[in-house]
């Protein structure tokens, strides 16, 4: 009688309007890429799109097989010419672009159209390898809606009005969103890559370097790129405590400071003699392409997954190639407990070349003072040293020249001069490079540190206190520390020399006009948004996933557990969506519900309402067959009739009716 035979609806070739919709969405998807693709490539694709348009609308002929193959070969050669490779991200995307263009010209059957749409989806995905900003995401969303509308219209162009296809695609995508969210959050993420990435996987980056010469850090003063953001568990530290330690440099050739081999920059001893309360915080670091990580002076312990570097610095296991979040604790007041080995001590006292005559004279003056640190800082403060964003270049003997001639410098000038003087005076000293300051974002409740906040300071060894931080910049230009680098830019724009004015005057000078303040507030808001974005999109990885799971109450979930959770979550979401999609739209009358309830109770005693029996007729029959229930039932029916068939809509009557139905008890006859 019945046979099991599936019948697959045929795929009729789409018509011209479908092809035009496909061309439109192709153009839309290419907007994601056009700024990165070479101009000739964009022109070639535009030409192919136009060709298809002419084929569809003006009766041009589709190219023959020979022409198509010739185009494939020519395009491949040109791509290889451009990128010197056919592999890798950039060349791959270029090839994909060409492939889409060629597919457009040769489409005939329904399947070709579907493949073209799939290629467009893949092309959309490839845009994320270049940018993951919220703007890219928004653009890609719009483009995806367009592509999906095309996919809907391929089958149904003759039936669905364009507006209904759009509504349909939007409805489908909106319903897909919750399921996507569950997959996104719960799909097990892995650290690292499956296979070696092509060399151009990540773009070139600049920033802090591990070799510091006069002018190295100064070059960053104009670099507005964000280096990292920090959220504190409590209130943020005072501005003069915001020293972000990244590298310790103790080797020098007299001009450049750099990292020493082995453990000469300081051992991996992390003990403290004493310390104040810890400050806990989470750093959200931009990709640096380097291994070192920043930590607030002085880090208590390296965070989980990171290593202890020389001189109490923190080092990642692999270069940081993408946004990266880590949590750790630091002490802002501390005394370290460590010993200085003879070798390290000797290394930290090594000076380069003989001191000049006037330097020797100066050193003699210093030695006469009880505290060499105070002596040198006093020298910087009292002489006409100037902190400037535009220091002059230095010649063959930078130290001598800076101390006696130019006397104008940026942080690295003062820090390296100070460290060198200390070594001449027999005090072990080294250079620390990192960031100082940062701007507090009240909208997001976090600190933004930019590359322009890069800073260098010194550390000297005191037998009783270990390595302690000494920042000569704070003496010469207290505004740098108190107000941050931005303030210095503002002041120097007004011709003010740092270190010359009282703090009240500086504050007055730094008060910006209202418009500027609003603009800055707006920028901070945007940054807060993009931080949240980065936290959940760009930097969402195994650690964030584990944190999320822990917050949801699943400690250290296994892969199997995650897979089960993912499946269960997706199934539940799918069921919910199917309820909204397939469920009854019409809300039933509560009176009808009460009636079916009471009828079900009567049916259980063997008194079944006939389908075509009206309420009054049924009530009469109940009265005859079950006189014991007659009164109660007819009372219900009277009210039911008024509520279901009459104009009565009073909620109180409805609740009485529901109560009557609930309380109705019918013993079997």
């Amino acid at each position, binding site marked *: 009688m*019945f046979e099991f035979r599936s*019948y697959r609806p045929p795929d009729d070739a789409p018509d011209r309007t479908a092809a035009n919709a496909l061309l439109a969405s192709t153009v839309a998807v290419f907007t994601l890429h056009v700024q990165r693709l070479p101009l000739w490539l964009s022109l070639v694709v535009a030409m192919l799109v136009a060709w298809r348009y002419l084929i569809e609308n003006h009766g041009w002929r589709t190219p023959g097989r020979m022409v198509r193959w010739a185009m494939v070969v020519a395009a491949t050669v040109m791509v290889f010419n451009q990128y010197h490779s056919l592999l890798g991200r950039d060349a791959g995307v270029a090839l994909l672009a060409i492939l889409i263009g060629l597919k457009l010209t040769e489409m005939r059957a329904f399947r070709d159209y579907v493949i073209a749409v799939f290629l467009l*989806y893949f092309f959309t995905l490839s845009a994320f*390898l270049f940018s993951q900003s919220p703007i890219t995401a928004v653009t890609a969303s719009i483009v995806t809606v367009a592509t999906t509308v095309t996919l809907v219209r391929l089958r149904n162009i003759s039936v669905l009005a364009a507006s209904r296809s759009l509504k349909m695609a939007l409805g489908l*995508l909106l319903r897909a969103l919750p*399921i996507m969210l569950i*997959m996104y959050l719960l799909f097990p*993420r892995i650290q690292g890559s499956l296979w070696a990435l092509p060399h151009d996987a990540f773009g070139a980056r600049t920033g802090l370097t591990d070799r510091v010469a006069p002018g190295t850090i100064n070059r960053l003063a104009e670099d507005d790129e964000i280096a990292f953001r920090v959220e504190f568990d409590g209130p943020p530290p005072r501005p003069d405590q915001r020293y972000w330690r990244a590298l310790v440099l103790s080797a020098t050739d007299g001009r450049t400071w750099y990292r020493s081999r082995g453990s000469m920059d300081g051992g991996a001893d992390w003990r403290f003699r004493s310390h104040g309360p810890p400050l806990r915080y989470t750093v959200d670091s931009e990709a640096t392409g380097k291994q070192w990580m920043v930590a607030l002076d002085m880090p208590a312990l390296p965070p989980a997954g990171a290593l202890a570097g020389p001189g109490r610095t923190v080092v990642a296991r692999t270069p940081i190639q993408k946004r990266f979040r880590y949590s750790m604790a630091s002490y802002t007041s501390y005394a370290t407990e460590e010993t200085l080995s003879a070798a390290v001590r000797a290394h930290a006292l090594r000076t380069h070349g003989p001191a000049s005559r006037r330097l020797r004279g100066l050193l003699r003056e210093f030695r006469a003072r009880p505290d060499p640190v105070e002596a040198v800082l006093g020298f910087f403060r009292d002489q006409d040293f100037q902190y400037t964003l535009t220091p002059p270049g230095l010649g063959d003997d930078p130290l001598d020249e800076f101390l006696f001639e130019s006397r104008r410098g940026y942080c690295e000038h003062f820090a390296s001069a100070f460290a060198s003087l200390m070594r001449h005076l027999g005090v072990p000293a080294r250079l620390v490079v990192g960031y100082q300051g940062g701007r507090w974002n009240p909208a997001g409740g976090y600190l933004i540190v930019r590359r322009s906040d890069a800073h260098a300071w010194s550390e000297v060894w005191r037998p009783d206190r270990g390595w302690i931080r000494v920042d000569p910049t704070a003496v010469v230009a207290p505004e740098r520390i108190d107000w941050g680098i931005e303030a210095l830019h503002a002041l120097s724009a007004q011709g003010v020399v740092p270190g010359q004015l009282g703090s009240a005057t500086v504050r007055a000078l730094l008060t910006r006009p209202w418009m500027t303040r609003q603009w800055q507030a707006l920028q901070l808001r945007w940054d807060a948004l993009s931080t949240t974005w980065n936290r959940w999109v*760009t930097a969402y*990885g195994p650690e964030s996933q584990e944190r999320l799971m822990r917050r949801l109450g699943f400690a250290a979930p296994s892969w199997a557990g995650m897979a089960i959770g993912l499946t269960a979550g997706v199934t539940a979401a799918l069921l919910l969506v199917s309820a909204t999609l397939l469920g009854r739209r019409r809300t039933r009358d509560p009176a009808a519900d009460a009636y079916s309830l009471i009828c079900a109770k009567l049916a259980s005693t063997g008194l079944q309402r006939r389908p075509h029996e009206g309420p009054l007729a049924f009530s009469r029959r109940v009265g005859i067959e079950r006189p014991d229930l007659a009164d109660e039932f007819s009372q219900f029916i009277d009210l039911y009739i008024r509520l279901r068939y009459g104009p009565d809509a009073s909620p109180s009557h409805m609740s009485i009716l529901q109560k009557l139905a609930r309380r109705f008890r019918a013993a079997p006859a």
Partner: protein
Amino acid sequence: MQFTPNELLLGRQRLYMLPTSHGIYFGLLLLAMLLVAVNYNNGLAYAFTFLLSAMGLVSMLYTHRNLVGLRIIPKDADPVFVGQLASFPVQIDNPSPTIRSDIWLVSNQCRRRMDLGPQSHEQVLLSAATTRRGYLRCPVISISSAFPFGLFYTWAKPARPAYRCLVYPKPGPLLPWPAHFRSGGGREPHRGIDGDDFAGLRAYQSTDPPGHVHWKAAAHGQGLQTKRFGGATNATIWLDWRATHGPDIEDRIGILCRWVLDADAAGLRYGLRMPGVELAPERGQSHLHQSLRALALWRPPDV
């Protein structure tokens, strides 16, 4: 008479679903996308891959919704003669407030695509060839859809509704009237071409002479009708199985069928007598139907 017609409700249990070949390609595309996302550790790529996967899953629900709840209401087909195409009217009813698009109704001899608006219905004629007299069962009906993406397709368990078409025998060649009529009656009645009195219209049958077709009505789009002319004759005729000869039962039935049609066209009162069947002389549309029905369903009695 059936007020609750033998309709097929496309419930959940009745519907199946499978991916199309494009659906399988789509799965491969998603896999490739996931590999890219994992390898580049790219959050947006993950998000996009999962968006498309979720979209695929939700599209299954859309595909299912496109058929679920539809009602297929077949009806009896009008009787035809052997050799003519039987057309079974099948009504597809969409009682829901949603549009159903791109639905394919298929039987072994034809297929139709249709779109159903909210609370609307569409009637399809499923035709089937007729080769022998008697009842012809309604062909197997199956219904399917790949809306909206063509990634999945759903189809209903094919069903063969209990509807049927009465197939009259094929009228035999023109033959003289039965011999006993000729000998018994005085005047042989004309073969329905009694030109005197117009006696009304009836539906056209392929055996009618073209001159009697009411072309004016046909030109007004009212379908083919044949003018009937009732003569003054009030003759009664018995069409008897014994008056036919031949080795083949079907041929003899064909001769009787021809006589019945001719007698009706001539406006005679005619009766039908066959082994096991006897219809009293009568005339009119319903008697014609009764007679043809008796011929269509007649089986030689067991000897």
